[in-house]
Each structure stands twice: as C-alpha cells, then as structure tokens.
C-alpha cells in the first residue's frame, strides 16, 4: 500500500511503508549508500507529514521485512504484548509523539507500555522528534538492571572499563583495569574486547579478573566480548563467565553475518543462567548494536538504518540484558558521516532502546576516517547523560589501542558525573569510599594510604 502527502505545491507518493520511513529519516550517509534517502529537504518533510498520520497499529499489519523470511520479524510479531499496547493502540505516530511528551506519560506509564512498543513504532516516532524531544522523553524512562551492581538508577552514571590491549597481554590489561578503578570507573562492567577469539585466551582473562574481584571484594561484573560460540566453550570448561556478550542486528540475515541466530542466543542464555553466579533475577546478557550493521551485511531488506537498528533492540529485549549499548560512531563515515550524524544517531538509539524497555548505554565514539573529533564526543556525551544514559565506556585516554578508534575516557566519565551531579552505582560508590578512591565530597581523589595502595600493590612495580 502506498502513502501520500500534499505539501501545498507538490504531491509526494511513497510506494510502501519502508520507503515512507526511509524518506522521513534525518539525512545520513548510510541511507544514501543504500539509495533510500529523501532526494530533497521538502520530500523528507512530506514523508514526516505522512508518517505523522500513520496509525501505530499499521506496523503490526504491514511488516517491513516479510514474516516468512525473517525470524526477527516473527519474534517482533509473535511476542507483541497487546495488553501493554492497548493504551496507545488507537494513536497515530504523530499523536504518539505528543503523548510521549505530555504529563500523562509518566515514568510508570512508559514502563507499562514498553512491551507493547514494536521497534518500527519507536523508530517512526523518533523520526518526528527533535533532539530535545529524544532527550526529554528518554529522561523520563528508567530501566534498572542488576548483577553485583545496580545499573540505571536515576541520578547515577555507570562506566564500563574497556582495558583492551593489542596482544591481549594480561599485565597490560591489568594495568588499564587498575587505572580505571582508580578513576572511579567499572560499575557497568569490566569488558575486554579480545584481539584473538580464542577460548583459551578468554578463559585466562576471566580468571585473572575473577582473582582481582574476589581478593579486593570489588562489586563488578566482568565480560570478555568474544563471539558467543567462544564464550559457550569457556562455560563448558567451567570458566567464570558473568555475562554472555554478542553483537546483534535487526534481521535474520544480518545476524547470520554475525554468526548467530535466536536459537543459538537462547542456548547461550540458558547456559549462563545455569552457572548461578548471580543473585536470583539478575540480568546476564550484554549486547552491542549500531546503525549500519545490517546494511554492511547487505541484510537490510530496503529498510533505513535507524529502523533496522531499532529492530535489533527487539532481539536484545528477548533476553532481559544487563547492558545494551549502541557503538554509535564505530562503523565509520559510510554510515554516519560526521559529528552531526553521529550525535543524532546516538540520541535516537538511546531513546528507541529506552522506549522499548532496554537498559541503554552508549559507546560515544568515532573513527579516524570520520569527520569528527573530541569536541563532537563531548557534545554527545553531555546530551546522553542529560537524557539519563545508563552507562558509557571508559577507555584510557579515550584511545582504544586494540580496536583503533576513540571513545570516552575515564576523565570524560568524571567530567560528566561532575557537571551533572551524577554518581556511580550505589554498591560501587560504597566500595570506592571504603578504598579511599572517592573522598568525603564524593569526588574521585584517590589517597595514597589505605585500600587504593593495597589495590595498586596487586600489580608488579
């Protein structure tokens, strides 16, 4: 079915819902690469006008990717919560935006409707929102998850220590972990991207962090971000796996390019649950996503990259994860060209994920072939933290020496907490104070005496 809009001069026709959503999307490189972007500014606004009049329920009747061909579509439709959807079922996308901004949409209301929001609905309404709308609504939503720390509480900002090393050397990774702890980071997790996807290496890394955690009673969870099949091997060998990690995307074919499907993720989720390392009810999965992943695998089915990204959140939602973050600028300028596109995408991803009930964090980042720099990261970091982002990355000096890109640093985390009055996760904050890393005014100012010195003594001098 086609959709039309008369702007007063020209009558625009959009052949199908995919086209309508793509043309309504803010300008970005990946949609141009895919040949899906609006051809003029006026066409883009015309698409938004038509989209604003589209009933939300239409997204359930007219799937963007065929039901028969795609297990992500089947997941979205088969698990859609009609009861949660009921209060918004009669709204158009435009009315949904107005409702989200209204006083009626309280934190409680938004939590109740989250399971009824299909990814395409979240993507559609985001295309009608300005940056401040994406921030204002996300700010009202609180998605709290738990393992050894509590993540996502209002007024808190957690940080993943990302202590990568180009050759996976234990001493080097350990040094970066200690540095991160001394800067008050690590409450989201200690998460290492391994240079080699080897179960033996992963096991060695996890065992070393486990030793450190137990010895100093640090309330953290650890994760080596290897492929899910590698982590399953580590679990078979009895390794101390807290979290199962996997990169995911918004179509069955795109997930196939990542070497996963829902059955495999189900199996991994069952396996990590059976380890019983966490308190009952804890969240045990960690997912990363990013706009452009489906297109880069030629698995986007003619759908714009922002909508495909929201569909990945439907995959994540199935597993009640502890952590989900968009790696927003990692994919490169073919998909998000410059600082402006990265900033917009970061706010969209955070909003859509939160709206769907996910504990969204963000890897605020860019590569050296994108038109972006640290100033752009400062802007996005600040805006995301205003919006209530659950966690960010802590990379030493913002420079990931293994993956070759720039993210946010331990210093950036201190800045964000300081200017916005945000604190670490409560369990971790108590530990920082007990170890003399955080002072009485809740500033990170490690003292030479006490626990901090003992912690540092764990590394050879």
């Amino acid at each position, binding site marked *: 079915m086609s959709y039309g809009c008369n702007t007063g001069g020209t009558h625009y026709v959009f052949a199908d819902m995919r086209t309508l959503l793509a043309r309504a999307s803010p300008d970005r490189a990946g949609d141009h690469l895919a040949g899906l972007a609006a051809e003029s500014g006026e066409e883009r606004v015309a698409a938004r006008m038509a989209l604003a009049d589209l009933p939300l329920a239409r997204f359930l009747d007219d799937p963007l990717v065929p039901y028969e061909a795609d297990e992500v579509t089947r997941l979205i439709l088969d698990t859609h919560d009609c009861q949660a959807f009921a209060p918004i079922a009669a709204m158009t996308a435009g009315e949904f935006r107005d409702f989200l901004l209204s006083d009626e949409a309280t934190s409680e209301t938004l939590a109740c409707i989250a399971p009824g929001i299909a990814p395409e609905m979240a993507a559609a309404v985001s295309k009608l929102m300005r940056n401040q709308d994406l921030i204002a609504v996300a700010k009202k939503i609180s998605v709290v998850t738990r393992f050894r720390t509590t993540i996502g509480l209002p007024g808190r900002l957690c940080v993943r220590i990302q*202590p990568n090393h180009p*050759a996976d050397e234990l001493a080097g990774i350990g*040094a970066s972990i200690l*540095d991160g702890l001394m800067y008050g980071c690590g409450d989201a997790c200690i998460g290492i991207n391994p*240079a*080699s996807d080897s179960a033996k290496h992963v096991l060695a890394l996890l065992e070393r962090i486990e030793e450190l955690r137990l010895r100093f009673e640090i309330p953290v969870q650890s994760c080596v971000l290897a492929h899910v099949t590698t982590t399953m091997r580590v679990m078979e060998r009895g390794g101390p796996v807290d979290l199962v990690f996997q990169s995911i995307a918004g179509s069955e074919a795109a997930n196939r390019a990542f070497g996963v499907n829902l059955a495999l993720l189900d199996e991994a989720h069952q396996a990590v649950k059976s380890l019983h390392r966490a308190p009952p009810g804890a969240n045990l999965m960690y997912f990363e996503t990013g706009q452009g992943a489906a297109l880069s695998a030629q698995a986007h089915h003619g759908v714009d990259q922002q909508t495909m990204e929201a569909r990945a959140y439907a995959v994540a939602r199935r597993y009640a994860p502890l952590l989900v973050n968009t790696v927003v600028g990692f994919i490169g300028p073919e998909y998000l060209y410059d600082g402006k596109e990265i900033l917009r995408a970061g706010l969209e991803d955070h909003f859509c994920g939160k709206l769907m009930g996910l504990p969204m964090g963000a890897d605020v980042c860019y590569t050296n*072939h994108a038109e972006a720099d640290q100033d752009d990261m400062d802007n996005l970091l600040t805006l995301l933290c205003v919006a209530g982002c659950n966690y960010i990355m802590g990379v030493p000096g913002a420079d990931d*020496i293994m993956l*070759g890109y720039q993210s946010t640093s331990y*210093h950036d985390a201190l800045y964000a907490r300081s200017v916005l009055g945000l604190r670490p996760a409560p369990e971790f904050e108590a530990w920082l104070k007990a170890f003399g890393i955080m002072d009485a005014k809740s500033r990170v100012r490690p003292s030479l005496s006490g626990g901090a010195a003992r912690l540092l003594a764990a590394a050879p001098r």
Partner: protein
Amino acid sequence: MTLPPGDFWDYLRRATPARIALGRVGDGLPTARVLEFELAHARARDAAKANLDPAALIAGLAAWRPVLVRSEAKDRATFLQRPDLGRRLAENCAEKLAPGSFDATIVIADGLSAGAVQAQAAPLCKILLAAPNCVFAPPVVAIQGRVALGDDIAARQGATLAVVLIGERPGLSSCDGMGAYITFDPKPGVTKDAERNCVSNIGGHGLSLDEAGRRILAIMALARTIRRTGTCLKEDEALDLLLPAPGTLNQIA
C-alpha cells in the same frame, strides 16, 4: 612542552601502550595531555587519507610476479564513503588475473591504512609464500580495496583460499596495524564476514610478523582439512595441530 607529573601509579605505564595514569587537573586532563592527543589524532587522520605506493610493494615481491589491480572506488574520498565499490574489481582489471588452479592466493590491499601495508605486507607475504605443501597464485596488490575484494580475486584466479592482508583503521597509538582475513572457497557477493577468520593487530604494538605468519598458516592448514573458515574454525584448534615452535619444549622443561 613538559609533561606534568602523572598519577602516583604512573609506573604502570610500562605494562601497556594504553594512555593510563595521565594525571588530572580537577576532573580534567592536563594541557600537555590534551595536546599530545590532538597531535596523535592529526597524524591518524593524515594516515587514513594517505595513498598506497604500489610500485615499491611490487618491487619487493618481484620474484613472485605480483599483479596490480584496483577496485571500483576511484579515489580515497570515494573509497571512504562507498564500501560497495571497494569490494568490486574495476572492470579493466579482471583480465590481469589469469585463471588457474591454486591452493591459495594472497591479496595485499590498502584498506584503511596504506602505511601499515606499505611497511609490512611484503615481508609477511614472503613468510606465507615460503609455506611447504601449498601452491600459491601470483600475489595481488589491490588499490582502494576492502576485504571482500579478495573473494572476487580468488574466484578469478581459481584459488581455494583467499588471504587478504589489509590496513586496519588507524588508531592514535599506532597507525600501522594490519589485519589478515582468511576465507575458504570465497564466493563474490555471497560469502559473509562470519565465514572468514581474522588475525588482527599485526605489526606495531601488536603481533610480530613471524607470530602472525605462524597463526595465519595454522588457520590455512586447518581450513584446508575441514574445508571451511569462519566461526566454525577456532584458532586454538588450528595452533594445537601445529608442531611446537622451536624452543617451546625447552621453555616448558
């Protein structure tokens, strides 16, 4: 410009090239550290924009009669914005690739860091070409190339395995990282990234060329046995099948 004193754990910097123990002014970075970062970023940006000098690479591999090809991306700016063009062979290049029957082909592509490939691809290529029991096609140097360009090249040369040595995204601490992507029975336009094995961070602060060569050859050997690459082939198992490296037994004893 003198660096300010770092944190009192700055001795940890010896353990890693990562930017740790940088010191603080309030919660922020000291001036010298900010400028140090800006310098590294400027250099990395320059590296990403640099072009490959194919003549020097070809001269280094002259004994193996290397072939020079280009992708459809005509220049650096196009390459950066159109990955689809970087995966396709330019039309006039197909005829340069003589069809045959080979166990493997090595493709050297600039990717995102021409400098990394310029400095390290030829010596690594020689290590691989010296492998016994493997018949290699003439090596190929590809300009403005992405990983999947190797699929097309291998298919045209009639090679069962594609080994693509390619420049990785330049980082701040090292602009000279190279990756090796190994693909069994590559099919242009069909082969997915999960069907490849990768040895990354070759050179610079990462793997030595000898160690990278050892790992790549191990993966190639196992790939030829199980006739697959990708997530089903684990590097551990490949390395376990190798004979112990010289000196290893002594170290254990």
